[in-house]
């Protein structure tokens, strides 16, 4: 039954591909296809629930696909051929629904995995008219193909008895890590997301990246020593978390900032998984329970909140035409609902209490703390490292999202003058996703028993850790926050004496006569001192053109922070290969004599070798 959902999505995809001449029909077919497949998926889950892990990794797709479909109805108007878009949109959703169910046969999984890469590649390069999209599309396709080739090697090594186990392990982790955005392998994420249409990047970062972790957990780790797996995930997760959020700070493009924060969140999820495996290795029950819950909650929360943020970015792009935070500003007045949802999701994703982001992080913290208090020195170090990284990235995430929200939505509009109104198709799904996240905050304490029943892992007893009580208290205090703030609002409303009414006026900018929007603190200004703090890591490049002469005409300041991995690792590697190829090109020099000479030498060498051996 569940395969039906993938089947329906694929059929809808092909249908809308066929009628790509008539846009309208394709749109209807696309949206209908997505909704039908999601309904089939949910019905399938209720009738014959798949194993816990597959269910977990299907949930984000089931949640995000309809939201993104509704959003893209308005998003792709006038952006390109809707037939192709809906076709490949449904095909990608089909592959993402099918992948978690193919746990048994790795080869089937690999085929669908590479198909997912190709379909999402077409979506990424949807507005192919832009020149800089060539590089982005190339990088994205290379990442998918490299992952596929590594997994082919992984599959091949599983047959070779002589081959060393570490190579098998490295190939698997690297192959899946490419999709999961592990350090050094994350290069395609910050390139593909700004270029892809917003609903597509919502699905990709919400659901597709987790499949990388799914692959590692299901195919690479069985049979390997648990503590090795735990430590790999923890270290790789830690590096990609810190690296991700630090590189998110100086980004000027809104979706690029969100892409880096996806890298950070996938790092947090792999750290949670790492704690679970380490707990499993040292039989620390509370660490396993908190680790599992942390992973589940964080995957779902990240899918929901990151989906909202990307859809918000999509709406911002549609109404203001640009994604650069410094050029926007004051979007809250033009697109109030999107602004509020974006702010709420931003606060949630940086792990702050009233939203579900906090509950996920709380579980991971508790896993880390149970590691710290467990007495085994390995767990203790892992716990301290995990907790410290989580808190540092939490604070950096607060800064990054303050910049994103402050720069885009708050204050006065800087360069964007005519803004289109926000359409209900676009902010509807955002409200739906936010409602779901609030629902999770208050429903998780009651669903914990059935989560562990679905996972049906006998060795863990979750009751002893009192996790339900913890979740209940966390939820109740979030509710208390709402109650208290409404009380204070009412108190403020009534405490005022009748005579002193509220007045409106320009911002008191310390007596400035005529404050203009250009004097406002832009997003990059907000992050400038943080950028200096981490400059040794970020290596921010500044191009300053100071004003010269008595009457300076033109002065400019520009700064950009290219991706560290790309600048210091991938760029040199690719130029090395290009250098080698230029040298090798000399052999095809066009001289016939040279060719025949080489042929004779090689033939003589082969004959001599034949005679000797």
């Amino acid at each position: 039954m569940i395969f039906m959902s993938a089947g329906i999505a694929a059929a809808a995809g092909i249908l809308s591909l066929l009628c790509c001449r008539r846009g309208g029909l394709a749109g209807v077919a696309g949206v209908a296809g997505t909704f039908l497949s999601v309904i089939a998926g949910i019905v399938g889950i209720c009738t014959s629930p798949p194993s816990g892990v597959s269910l977990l990794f299907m949930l984000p797709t089931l949640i995000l696909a309809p939201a993104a479909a509704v959003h893209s109805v308005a998003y792709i108007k006038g952006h390109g051929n809707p037939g192709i878009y809906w076709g490949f949109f449904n095909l990608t959703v089909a592959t993402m629904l099918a992948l978690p169910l193919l746990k048994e046969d790795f080869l089937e999984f690999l085929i669908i995995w590479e198909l997912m890469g190709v379909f999402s590649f077409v979506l990424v390069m949807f507005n192919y008219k832009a020149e800089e999209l060539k590089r982005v599309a190339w990088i994205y396709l290379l990442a998918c193909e490299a992952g596929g080739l590594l997994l082919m090697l992984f599959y091949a090594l599983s047959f070779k008895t002589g081959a060393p186990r570490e190579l098998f392990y490295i190939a698997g982790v690297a192959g899946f890590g490419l999709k999961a955005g592990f350090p050094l392998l994350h290069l395609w994420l910050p390139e593909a997301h700004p270029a892809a249409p917003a609903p597509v990047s919502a699905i990709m970062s919400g659901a597709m990246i987790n499949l990388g972790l799914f692959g590692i957990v299901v195919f690479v780790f069985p049979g390997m020593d648990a503590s090795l797996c735990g430590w790999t995930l923890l270290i790789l997760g830690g590096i990609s978390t810190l690296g991700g959020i630090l590189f998110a700070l100086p980004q000027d493009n809104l979706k690029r900032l969100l892409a880096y924060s996806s890298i950070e969140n996938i790092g947090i999820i792999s750290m949670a998984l790492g704690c679970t495996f380490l707990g499993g290795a040292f039989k620390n029950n509370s660490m396993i329970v908190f680790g599992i819950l942390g992973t589940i909650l964080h995957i779902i929360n990240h899918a929901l909140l990151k989906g909202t943020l990307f859809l918000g970015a999509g709406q911002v792009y549609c109404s203001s035409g640009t994604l650069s935070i410094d050029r926007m500003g004051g979007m809250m007045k033009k697109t109030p609902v999107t602004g509020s949802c974006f702010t709420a999701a931003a606060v949630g994703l940086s792990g702050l209490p009233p939203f579900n982001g906090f509950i996920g992080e709380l579980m991971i913290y508790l896993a880390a703390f149970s590691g710290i208090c467990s007495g085994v020195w390995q767990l203790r170090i892992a716990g301290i490292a995990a907790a410290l990284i989580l808190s540092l990235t939490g604070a950096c995430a607060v800064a990054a999202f303050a910049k994103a929200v402050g720069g885009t939505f708050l204050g006065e509009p800087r360069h964007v003058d005519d803004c289109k109104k926000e359409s209900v198709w676009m902010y509807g799904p955002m409200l739906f996703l936010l409602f779901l996240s609030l629902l999770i905050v208050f429903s998780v304490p009651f669903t914990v028993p059935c989560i562990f029943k679905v996972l049906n892992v006998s060795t863990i007893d979750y009751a002893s850790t009192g996790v339900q009580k913890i979740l209940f208290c966390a939820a109740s205090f979030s509710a208390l926050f709402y109650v208290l703030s409404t009380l204070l609002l009412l108190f403020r409303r009534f405490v005022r004496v009748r005579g002193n009414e509220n007045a409106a006026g320009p911002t008191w900018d310390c007596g400035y006569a005529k404050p203009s929007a250009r004097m406002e603190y832009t997003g990059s200004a907000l992050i400038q001192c943080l950028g200096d703090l981490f400059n040794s890591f970020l290596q921010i490049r500044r191009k300053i053109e100071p004003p010269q002469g008595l009457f300076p005409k033109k002065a400019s300041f520009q700064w950009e922070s290219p991706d560290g991995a790309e600048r210091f690792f991938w760029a040199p590697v690719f130029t090395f290969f290009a250098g080698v190829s230029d040298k090798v090109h000399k052999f095809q020099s066009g001289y016939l004599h040279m060719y025949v000479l080489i042929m004779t030498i090689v033939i003589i060498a082969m004959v001599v070798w034949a005679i000797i051996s």
Partner: protein
Amino acid sequence: MVSMLALLITVPMLTAVIAALCKGRFCRLLLLTGGLLHLGLTLYCSSIRIDGRWIGLTSYTESLLLILTSALYFAVSCYCCVWLKAEECSRKSLWVLGICLPLFLATMTLVILSRNFGVMWVAIEATTLFSAPLILFHRSGRALEAMWKYLLICSVGIALALLGTLFLAFAARCGGVELHDLRISEFLNIRDSLHPGWFKVAFVLALAGYGTKMGLAPFHTWLPDAHSEAPGAVSALLSAGLLNCSFLGIIRFAALAPEQTGDFCRGLLIILGIVSLATAAFFIIHQGDFKRMLAYSSIEHMGIAAMLFAVCGIEMTMIHLVAHSAIKMSLFLLAGNLLLACGTRQIARISGLFNTLPGNAILFLAGVILICGVPPSPLFFTELSLLVQAPLWLSLPTVLLLFVVFAGMMKNVLSMTMGKNCDLAINPAHAERMIWVPVAGLTAALAIGIVFGVNL
């Protein structure tokens, strides 16, 4: 029954003679009828299993290759019908085309059907002779240079193969058997009594000879020039048809290898395979001309086929060759379309094809993705089985080189198809109509891939 096979060879010759007589007037019609007839005949007699003195059809691989070659020829002739109308070329070159193409087909069929090493050698030499004038279709200086190099290098290589055949006969004599006319079936009977030393020398020379024709690494230098200068249809035939026939020569030689020389021959094949994969990879990276890029991709796939034959045996190699021919034919025909529409082969000067030539651009991109072995294409399964069965020291470099090839090709193709329109005056009229044959080729390859994937 042998007469039926003989008919297979004489029918194209007949069309060639008619074309010669009527001075290139009904050239397109003749090509089409010749191709149709040949295809019908092949399908009819592909199930015959007979081992005649000169020609015969004995094994499943040979009939598969025969069907592939004639289907290929038929597809190319359909393409030619539309292409020759679009291409304004002189009556004389039409005449040359009308003669040489059927003769090329006849010689290729003779290579596949020949049951005698001598006859096979003569046929392969003849393919060189008849394909050389085809390269000269565009009458440019570069085409002349390409033809001269093609002629010289291939004939030097093929002569070495003759020497190899001689040494093979000598190895048989040293093994105590007196042979008069190099029949393959006789050699198969006396397989293990061949003198190993002389057989190794014979195999080396044959590998060098037929390897030159097939485009293996150190002997590949003629291939990029010949395939990029020849017109689209001819390079499709050259790359998809001729390379398989020359590979058949090596397969027949390797089938005779006695046990103790077995791993020597495999080792040699693997080394040549990995070297040609490496050269192709490094030549694709900064390649400025998309037809040369496709030629180097043929060299790469012939390298993979050689490794597959050495490591996984004949079935996988056959699937690889069939898939490669189907996709490469479509790609070369599409390249022909692009050349016809854009007028230049420089990748740097072409961009924004999605806007100007949407049909061709999408097919070209899909074809390149398929040729690089992404799952829907059967090449994925063959490369996977190569990785599974190859020793570790071979799998790792192969994976790296496959990635380098993919990176190189995708960069070129994406820079051509995406982005703003380039300043070239592109007239998409003819090019857009000529996409049906490549579509057929790609769907055939996809069908093979899906069928292969499903019953895996």
